[in-house]
């Protein structure tokens, strides 16, 4: 019984991590069709902002929940204004540019801070599932994943800003004819996607450790989840996270963590073969 509880908790954690990793990418790729290969580096910058601010004496929660998203959101705005905005509709050029950006960010951070930086310890202590001890911070990560998914969905579904974003992504020219500046909406959306990614990096920093190359470990998983989810970014990313997170953890429990990762990748390949438009390309098509 205790073991089942433990595995279930690990599955939830794995799902929550995938949700956090991919939600910002869901906004940037799913809504805007911009393939941001620097997504992993945005996560890394969020983790760095959290670690550095905390080491400077800022309260951990403030640096994680405020400093990280604000800083990476600003980086996102600068990147969008700097070059992404010239490349809309040019997918290959965008991939090259953001790949270059990712290499630049890794090099820059390594040059300034070296290859290691003092990380942050997970707060909140432990709790027990039967005879097993678990980090209470993991519970917080799960709560954050739920809050963020619900938040993005509520904003898109019920606010005027969400309506304008959805309309602009469907037909920018017509939105412009109704008085919307598409360039401004793209800029804000990209900035919000970056801020969500920075927040995810901050929340994951105490678990994952902080290093300049940490982004490369995450970027593939994030893309797999978003593409597996399909057009409806919130529902799709949520369902794909549940599916891949469960497969990953169950396989890892039955065998080894390495094989868990392999099972995730294999299941993603099979799913994209069966559902090339992603899960929400076939099911829940009217969702967000």
């Amino acid at each position, binding site marked *: 019984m205790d073991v089942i509880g433990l595995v279930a908790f690990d599955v939830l954690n794995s799902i929550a991590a995938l949700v956090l990793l991919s939600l910002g990418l869901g906004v940037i790729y799913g809504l805007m069709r911009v393939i941001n290969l620097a997504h992993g580096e945005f996560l890394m910058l969020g983790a760095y902002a959290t670690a550095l601010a905390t080491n400077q004496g800022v309260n951990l929660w403030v640096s994680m929940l405020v400093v990280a998203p604000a800083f990476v959101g600003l980086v996102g705005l600068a990147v969008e204004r700097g070059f992404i905005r010239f490349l809309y509709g040019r997918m290959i050029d965008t991939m090259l540019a953001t790949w270059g950006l990712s290499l630049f960010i890794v090099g820059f951070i390594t040059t300034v801070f070296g290859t290691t930086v003092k990380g942050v310890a997970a707060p909140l202590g432990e709790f027990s599932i039967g005879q097993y001890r678990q980090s209470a911070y993991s519970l917080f990560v799960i709560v954050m994943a739920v809050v963020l998914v619900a938040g993005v969905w509520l904003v898109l579904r019920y606010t005027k800003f969400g309506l304008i974003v959805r309309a602009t992504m469907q037909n920018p020219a*017509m939105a412009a004819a109704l*008085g919307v500046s598409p360039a401004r909406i793209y800029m804000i959306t990209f900035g919000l996607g970056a801020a969500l990614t920075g927040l995810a990096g901050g929340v994951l920093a105490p678990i994952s450790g902080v290093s300049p190359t940490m982004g490369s470990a995450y970027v593939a998983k994030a893309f797999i989840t978003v593409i597996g989810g399909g057009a409806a970014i919130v529902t799709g990313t949520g369902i794909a996270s549940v599916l891949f997170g469960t497969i990953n953890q169950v396989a890892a429990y039955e065998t080894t963590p390495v094989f868990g990762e392999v099972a995730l990748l294999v299941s993603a390949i099979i799913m994209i073969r069966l559902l090339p438009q992603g899960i929400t390309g076939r099911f829940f098509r009217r969702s967000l």
Partner: protein
Amino acid sequence: MLQVSGLKSGYGRIPVLFGVDLAVAEGALVGILGHNGMGKSTLLKALMGMLPAEAGTVVLEGREITRLAPFARARAGIGYVPQGREIFPALSVRENLRMGCLLSRRPEAATIEDVLTSFPRLTRLLDRPGGALSGGEQQLLALARCLCGGPRLILLDEPTEGIQPSIIDEIIETLQGLREARHLTIILVEQNLKFIAALSQRVLIIQKGVITREVSPQAIQDPALVAEFVGMAA
């Protein structure tokens, strides 16, 4: 209200408009008639700012708008009902109308309720996705969405294209009623002679990217005369 002089525009390096001159008085409904490929839709796109002006000027209510982006022209008071209607397919009818309300000076709910009195057919469709409507219903929605923003000048691009005749009559009646009630100024591009004759006060003929002549709406009810004007078989 609108003065266009020497307007040249086109798609990239392909010129389509070769110097259009056009003046529209406040409250007028001007029809523009021409063959496919003569530049009717291109003219409206250029007036809306969706295609850049390569030469010439566009002046709206005394203010030059030749270089303004589409959203700025919308804010200056131009409403656009494009060819193909361009309904947001995944948004509900209500959400499409709410998008139309962005430029409305009045509260959203009141604006929508007010506009719907002219489009009773849309009332029971409010929660349907825009993409699930028929062509005629989408055309009514596109008109209603445009009106929600309270534009002073409306550019109307082939509203009868691919629409069943019963709704065409409904659109004619709706537009006549609205024009009187709201003092709208409208530029209408059409190939449907009955539609353009029923609504227009003036009819301009466009040929190869220039306005070649003005005819009376009565004249285009005679197929032989139309054939002479534009070479268009009625």
